[in-house]
């Protein structure tokens, strides 16, 4: 009974855990400029974790007494998380120095958050899921308030913490209901218990609670209220991190549990998710129109994007899962790139966040304007940019799954949403110039360039990139 479990599948997580603690030591003992070294080492650690994750990325393997699982899907999800976190970290370094908060804890906490997400994604039991989720959440609460001298940042941290605790409570309560009515917390056990059985009201209520808990994490309506405030208050690179890594992790886990153990209750959870999805798409499209702060705008934008990604989940098919993974992949580049642009909005050594500050930058900063133009066109879903394909795949999956009304609402709301994306372009190119931006930092420009370029050239190289996504989706449905 005390035999050491098979550790091979968890090498990446174990490495990150050790690396996180080691980085803490490095930060403590390194005297000069610790944040730079720690950041670089953290990125290196992410790279190593990615390699480890890929190397263990074979057939489905379960370990730790069935608490932990790896397969092609979890492997791909982890790669996305690591990529998003690495890019966000590249953005965080110059920000921390410019703002005078160059404390090395920032990268360390991000490493622990990523560790939590990876554990979440690989969870094969409601309990290990919760542990991973909480590790992630705790790290994120701290990150939100990282700039603790800033009133808005602390407010954001508190809000996120309180509401996050509420959501965790919902999730935990739901898990306990499921356990109480089915007698197991293991995904495999749940799948067995629920297959072919009479649908049990207790289990269903439990699932609704779990769904609502996740909806909070992915910021879907009506559990999204924290998003604009936290996005605006949190430091911008942290917001960039928030907008991609935890969302990808939560959506992937969402997908895993709904089409895994709870597949037989699809009729029930589909109803709830459809409402959440439609509300998110429309709310994200409409509410963003009135925003003037670009970070708040991005908050609503991300609410809308989650809605679109959920379409793939609601379809509940392999094609839908693949569409959702595509969507998250493309969303990652679009979002990180846009936040890189936001971090380039510096006037006289001060970060600015108003949309009007973009006025006329096509003349003063043509490169930034061009990058943001590509990103915004992509967000609006204009072919041949990446965003179009993201939307196309989920809508196609919905249509093939017979969910035509959902696809139609998606198209309509993306038309509405196009308004504010295009408005940014109009402001940049047709309005008078106000101020000249400072020269952006090297790593920020790098992230911006890479993301904008990926969005533009996506059409030319989808195959190698998406082969992994295909394999991941296939792994989910092979059972």
């Amino acid at each position, binding site marked *: 009974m005390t035999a050491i479990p098979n550790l091979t599948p968890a090498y990446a997580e174990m490495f990150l855990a050790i690396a996180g603690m080691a980085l803490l030591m490095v930060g403590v003992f390194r005297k000069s400029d610790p944040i730079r070294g720690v950041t670089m080492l953290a990125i290196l650690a992410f790279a190593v974790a990615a390699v480890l994750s890929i190397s263990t990325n074979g057939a489905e393997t379960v370990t730790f007494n069935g608490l932990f699982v790896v397969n092609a899907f979890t492997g791909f999800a982890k790669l996305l998380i690591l990529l998003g976190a690495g890019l966000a970290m590249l953005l965080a370094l110059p920000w921390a120095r410019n703002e005078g908060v160059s404390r090395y804890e920032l990268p360390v906490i991000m490493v622990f958050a990523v560790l939590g997400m990876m554990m979440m994604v690989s969870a094969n039991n409601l309990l290990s899921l919760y542990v991973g989720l909480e590790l992630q959440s705790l790290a994120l609460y701290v990150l939100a308030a990282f700039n603790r001298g800033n009133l808005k940042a602390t407010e954001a941290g508190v809000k996120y913490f309180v*509401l996050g605790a509420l959501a965790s409570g919902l999730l935990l309560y739901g898990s306990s209901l499921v356990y109480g009515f089915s007698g197991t917390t293991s995904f495999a056990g749940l799948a067995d218990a629920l297959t072919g059985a009479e649908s049990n009201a207790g289990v269903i209520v439990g699932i*609704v609670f779990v769904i*609502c808990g996740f909806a909070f994490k992915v910021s879907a309506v009506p559990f999204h*209220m924290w998003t604009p405030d936290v996005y605006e208050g949190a430091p911008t690179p942290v917001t960039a991190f928030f907008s991609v890594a935890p969302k990808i992790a939560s959506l992937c886990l969402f997908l895993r549990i709904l089409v895994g153990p709870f597949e037989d209750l699809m009729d029930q959870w589909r109803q*709830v998710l459809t409402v959440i999805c439609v509300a998110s798409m429309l709310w994200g499209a409409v509410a963003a129109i009135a925003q003037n702060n670009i970070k708040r705008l991005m908050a609503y934008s991300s609410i809308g994007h989650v809605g679109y990604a959920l379409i793939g989940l609601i379809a509940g098919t392999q094609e839908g899962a693949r569409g959702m993974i595509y969507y998250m992949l493309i969303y990652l580049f679009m979002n990180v790139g846009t936040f890189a642009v936001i971090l380039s909005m510096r006037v006289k050594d001060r970060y600015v966040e108003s949309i009007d500050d973009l006025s006329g930058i096509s003349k003063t900063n043509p490169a930034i304007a061009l990058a943001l133009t590509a990103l915004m066109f992509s967000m609006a879903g204009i072919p041949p940019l990446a965003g179009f394909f993201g939307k196309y795949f989920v809508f196609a999956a919905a249509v093939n799954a017979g969910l035509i009304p959902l696809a139609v609402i998606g198209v309509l709301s993306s038309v509405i949403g196009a308004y504010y994306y295009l408005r940014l372009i109009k402001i940049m190119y047709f309005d008078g110039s106000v101020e000249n931006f400072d020269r952006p930092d090297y790593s920020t420009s790098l992230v911006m360039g890479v993301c904008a370029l990926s969005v533009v050239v996506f059409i030319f190289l989808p195959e190698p990139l998406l082969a992994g996504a295909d394999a991941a989706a296939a792994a989910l449905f092979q059972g």
Partner: protein
Amino acid sequence: MEAAAIFLPLVGAFIAGFFGRQIGDRASQVVTCLGVGSAAVLSIPLFFDVAVNGNERVVTIMNWINSGTFETAWALRFDTLSAVMVMTVTCVSSLIHVYSVGYMSHDDSKPRFMAYLSLFTFAMLMLVTADNLVQLFFGWEGVGVVSYLLIGFWFKKPTANAAAIKAFVVNRVGDFGFLLGIFGIYMLFDAVTFDTVFNAVPAHVDDTVTFFGIKGHALTLIALLLFVGAMGKSAQLLLHTWLPDAMEGPTPVSALIHAATMVTAGVFLVARMSPLFEYAPAALEVVTIVGASTAFFAATIGCVQNDIKRVIAYSTCSQLGYMFFACGIGAYPAAIFHLMTHAWFKALLFLGSGSVIHAMSNEQDMRKMGGIWKHVKVTYAMMWIGTLALVAVPPFAGYYSKDMILEAAFGAHTSVGQYAFIMGIGAALLTAFYSGRLLFMTFHGEPRADKETMDHVHESPLVMTLPLAGLALGAIFSGMIGYDLFIGEGRFDFWRDALAVVGEDPIEAAHHVPAWVVWSPMVVTVLGLGLSFHMYMRRPEIPGQLAAKFPGVYQFLLNKWYFDELYDFFFVRPAFWIGNFFWKRGDQGTIDRFGPDGISSSIISGARRLGSVQTGYLYHYAFAMIIGIALFVSWIVVGS
């Protein structure tokens, strides 16, 4: 050779039109004149070969549309009719090209003007050599477009733009009829190629069509629709209003397009389709009545107009009426003969008036002219030649053609023929009167222009007077030379089957009319000229007294029978009203208001409202979450 005669003008137009700026004014003028000139030179042997020697042919250039049973090709059809037209068009056009070099010497966009002229010539040639109705329509619309462009050539003048639009719109009305006619022909014959259609006509004589429950004779309907197109293009009564306004264009344009060639396209169309019209006697009666009425009506207006070009424009309208009623009574050869002679002398009159306008420093009002004949002797002589040809004094060209038309009308011995004869004689009287009036007011009497203008009166340069001389030759001799071939003993060998006549030959009948019929045109011409001499030379106060005595009649004529006002009231204003209604109330007030504008404004207000939900209070957010989960749970539990 055939293709060269047709396409050289297009080449000239292309070069001058697209590269005029690079190659300069002079080169543009040379290249266009050369293109049309060579076409004219080629057209003469072609005419002899085709018409005199009888080598009719169809030169196919390429396939155009092949779709199911529908086949059309780009082909040049050369029979006597088209050979006559090609020769007339290219010869008159080349003279007018040369004239334009002098007339437009002070204009800024000479290459554009020359390119348009050449393009027009090409389109007109396409029209007359067409082998099928679709290609004919191509040429038809081509000349329409260039006519529009040239009327509005001085696009900075609002009146020129208005006239161009008017010409285009009125022609659209006619073209719509023409198109329906083509559709009808395709429906009935399953073909649009002339030979196929004409061969099939006798088989469809008794066909009927039912439209909204009304049964009609198919061929009559088609012929009437085609005639609507002809009325538009040839400015016949009801669709004539655009032609006088078209005088806003430069004078060479008026001469070439709105006198000599394009406006005769309608006559050409009826002649071309004569094998079909001959089986639609009712339609022919309509053609006769409309033509005869136009001849008289336009002549009455011509008597009181003061703008020298407008007088000639109404004269053109009137002469076209002669041609139409000639067609209507079946005297197609006489119609085409008159078309040909008219092209020469009417172009001469227009260019002569252009020369006068040039001399008078762009003055067009005859009331401000007078007494200039000593200064512009060549122009004066040319105008006399043109006038004598117009009023049909022997041996000038008009005498041969116009008298034949009148005799044929009388010889037809039908009630519409009699009507046409009476109207024609009346119009001849008026023609002589207004022509004399034009000459006397312009050249004789006391100078009414101011001294400065009078000091500047000068003869036009050689580049303008030489083409006048060329046209004068045509105005003098074309009738004499062509008489035998067109309408004399040689007409059967000349026309062969280019023009169809079913039943009695009206030309033959025309040769056997009583002597008084033969003499009456001569008498009224002398009468008319004498009257005008009396009124404008010997007793110049009479016209004013007449106008004062009969103000109603005078105003009625001066305002062109109030056609423009009637159309404005019945068509233009209702159309504007309907358009405004649909635009303001329909589109802006309803569709936009509840459609795009309404949706976008409700989304914006929705965005504000959603934004106000975002209060920033933690308990509101938690409340939303709890409410959300409560709703979901109750829905699921109640639902399942």
